[in-house]
């Protein structure tokens, strides 16, 4: 399939992990979407950036640590891009070093441009 024919879809992840199931079910959707050879990207804005925080350990909660899926999304599941919004990181006292995986840290204006190019935006 040529690049032009691919549908551009972006997951916009705005929710912190564990307090609600949104981010966990967003990952489940990303993994499935990755199998269909479309142009899928993921952005983390607002509290969504907490999903990528290093060192998550859910043993005491008794919940599954679903964050382990993020590092393999790009390689194994054909997610084209993972963007993290710079301003949201800063506001939360985080930097790229605090994140568990290599991502593209972009500012709001750049992320906004990328959103404009999408056919569908799926907020989580």
């Amino acid at each position, binding site marked *: 399939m040529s690049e032009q024919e691919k549908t551009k879809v972006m997951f916009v992840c705005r929710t912190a992990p*564990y307090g609600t199931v949104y981010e966990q079910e967003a990952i489940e959707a990303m993994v499935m979407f990755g199998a269909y050879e479309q142009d899928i990207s993921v952005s983390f804005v607002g509290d969504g950036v907490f999903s990528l925080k290093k060192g998550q350990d859910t*043993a005491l909660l008794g919940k599954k640590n679903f964050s382990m899926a993020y590092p393999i999304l790009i390689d194994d599941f054909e997610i084209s891009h993972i963007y993290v919004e710079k301003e949201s990181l800063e506001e*939360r006292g985080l930097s790229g070093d605090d994140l568990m995986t290599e991502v593209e840290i972009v500012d709001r204006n750049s992320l906004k441009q990328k959103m404009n190019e999408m056919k569908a935006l799926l907020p989580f």
Partner: protein
Amino acid sequence: MLHIIKKSPYESSALNDAVNYIGQNDDVVLLVEDGVYAAKKGGKFEALLRNLTQKNSVYCLLADIKARGIQENELAENIKVIDYKGFVEKVVEHNPMTWS
């Protein structure tokens, strides 16, 4: 009173709403679930928490900071960490109100 705060202060007014009702005397604050993000050092709410800890005890739940990858040394000053048994003790000591 024990003020239990469950939501992230970045996306919810729960913390700010609670702060309006935290008295001088023996009111105590417990951050749980996404509420623990308020306690992260370097975050936007560090100053508010610092103010709060001047007159009130502020606790956060160990299981919730660990799940979210926040180490104890990443917490703002004077925030105390407790486990579920500590949570129970606080409820025994103070009448609870949950802000979600």
